[in-house]
């Protein structure tokens, strides 16, 4: 495998604010790389830098073996970039949008028809091909945008929160498409606020305040979390939350709706003890069980730790 993206100390300044701060990324060809982090962490800026939309303030980067600072024009035909907000031409029809992209990326006439048909089928937009993009649903717009970025079959895709604001069914469909592309060998870098999506990536980079704090497989990231997860469904979650924080062996408490997620030092040993403590204090619980850690809990735990560190400084 060869590196398709390599950055050394990649930095972007907005006045004095370091939106992206010394990023060292190394993404191999064929990866499905997830970029996660809270809002304002620098995910969008990173993707825009890699797409050549912003000038690099410090550091260097190569994308598809071209230098980002000096050869950004040569990079453009090799990437497909999908912006966070809808950025197609709303007054153009689905087909007109696709053909416009094909013209710009110099798709050969003999391959055009086949490729357009394939993408329309792929995105489930065949019957809507004459509809104006403005009149598509949010999910269809995202799929059209993805199709447009795929018309020139770029080896590298940069997708900025492609599923934000999309209903769960469309979201799943969208990810099925991404998985298919991934299998075909396309390198995909996707930023997302959804942790279940991060779980589907081959590698995840967590950004916080412009820095890449963790970059590993979802499995390894979850393993970094100390302790085991116990899921508690109490009847009165507020009282249960207060109590849980005082129990011995509980490292961290997260709420998830009215459910409590407790990180404990030893799941097998503590499960019974915690159940007992709840009963003793008169807090009834409808169920309690050991659960596997997901990216969601890992993410919240990591962000909390980072926030504590920042405020301690």
């Amino acid at each position, binding site marked *: 495998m060869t590196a398709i993206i390599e950055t050394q100390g990649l930095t972007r300044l907005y006045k004095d604010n370091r939106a992206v701060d010394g990023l060292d990324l190394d993404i191999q060809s064929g990866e499905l790389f997830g970029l996660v982090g809270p809002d304002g962490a620098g995910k969008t800026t990173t993707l825009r830098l890699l*797409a*050549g*939309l912003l000038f690099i303030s410090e550091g260097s980067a190569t994308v598809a073996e071209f230098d980002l600072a000096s050869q950004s*024009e040569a990079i*453009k*035909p090799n*990437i497909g*970039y999908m*912006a966070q*907000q*809808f*950025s*197609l*031409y*709303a*007054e*153009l029809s689905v087909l*007109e949008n696709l053909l*416009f*992209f094909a*013209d*710009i*990326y*110099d798709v050969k006439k003999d391959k055009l028809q086949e490729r357009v048909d394939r993408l329309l089928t792929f995105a489930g937009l065949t019957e809507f091909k004459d509809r*104006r993009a403005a009149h598509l649903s949010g999910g269809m717009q995202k799929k059209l945008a993805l199709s447009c970025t795929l018309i020139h079959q770029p080896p590298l895709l940069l997708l900025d929160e492609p599923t934000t604001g999309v209903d769960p069914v469309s979201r799943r469909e969208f990810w099925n498409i991404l998985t298919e592309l991934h299998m075909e060998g396309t390198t995909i870098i996707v930023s997302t606020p959804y942790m279940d999506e991060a779980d589907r990536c081959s590698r995840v980079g967590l950004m916080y305040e412009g820095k890449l704090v963790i970059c590993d497989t979802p499995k390894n990231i979850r393993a970094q979390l100390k302790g085991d997860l116990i899921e508690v469904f109490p009847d009165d979650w507020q009282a249960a939350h207060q109590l849980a924080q005082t129990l011995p062996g509980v490292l961290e408490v997260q709420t998830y709706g009215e459910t409590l997620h407790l990180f404990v030092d030893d799941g097998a040993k503590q499960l019974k003890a915690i159940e007992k403590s709840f009963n003793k204090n008169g807090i009834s619980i409808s169920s309690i069980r050991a659960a596997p850690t997901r990216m969601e809990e890992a993410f919240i735990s990591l962000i909390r730790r980072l926030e504590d560190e920042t405020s301690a400084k």
Partner: protein
Amino acid sequence: MSPIYLYTIFTCLPKSITMLRRIIAIAQKEFIHLRNDWWMPAFMLFGGVLELLLVGWATSRPITNLPIMVWDQDQSAASREIVTTLINTDTFVIEDYVSDMDTIEDALDRGDINVAVIIPPDYSEKIADPSGQPTLPIILNGAESIPALAALRAIEGVTRDLGERITLQRLGMSPDEFESFIPSLRVWFNEALNEALYTTPAELGLMLEFTVLLFASLSLSREKELGTLEQLLVMPFSSLEIIIGKAIPVIIIGFVDFVLMLSMVNIAFDVPIRGSLLLLLILAFGYLLVELGKGMVISVISRTQHQAFLLVMLVGMVDFMFTGYAAPVEGMPKAAQFFANIVPAHHWLEIVRGILLKGAGLDVLWPHVLALAILGTIIGTFSLRYVRRALD
């Protein structure tokens, strides 16, 4: 041809073909926008024609029927005669006869009348008295200066005749024995001093500026506002391709608009084309490119279409003031006169008026054409550099 030259042609050819293809693709896309967003091209093509139609129509007829109020304190044959003479000029129409000052003031305040004539009680007495000095107080509504000037002109004519008659009477001469001083005035280029012949060519020139400026200024600001510029910038475009692709529809629509407007003023208001039509069209094309450059700069500066529109208004108004259309440049302070000379629209209006009304050719208009060419080159080069820098 040297082999190296041939080699260059063959290697550059495919590149320029893809370049051409991308330019056509972007121009095509612009036309699809126009097709689907019909009010925009409708405004660009017919807004100017409509504006010219209204201006021409409003200014092509003389000012008549200005409401006048009369306070006749004399009630004599002489007082009635002067009122009748004023009405007979067709400039005025009687609003009312009144008998106090308050009503007149009130009517002036409300804008019901443009003129009030107050005939003093001793008016006929003083006319009859060989040494009398009759006076005729007249109040004009100066808040509306164009009707006021028309009224003044009519009143001056009437009183000059009356004064001449009184003088002859007192000298005991008959009008046949008297030859007064008559200036021999001849008006060139607009024999009837038809105002439409002055306003419509100027408006024609200005509407071309406004249309091109507005259309060009929306071209990129619109993509910025909708977030689509980002998509264009990640595509393998050179900035020059984007600029040319965006400029083509502006040039086509602007030029068609000009031809439409020119035909309209020619047919509807008898504005003549005394000079060379071909020269006018060529210069219109050149001028259009100058304004295109300005519009593109506004377009890159603005973040939204709204902002671009306001900037066009600002630039357009400043240009308008220095074209010499509203107030002659010759009457401006020296610094303003200099500034007027670096406003392309000023030279353009001189060219339009020169070719249409005076039948002037390049032999006469060359200073303006040269000025336009120099300003155009400077503005064009600057715009191209600026817009390319902003897009890269």
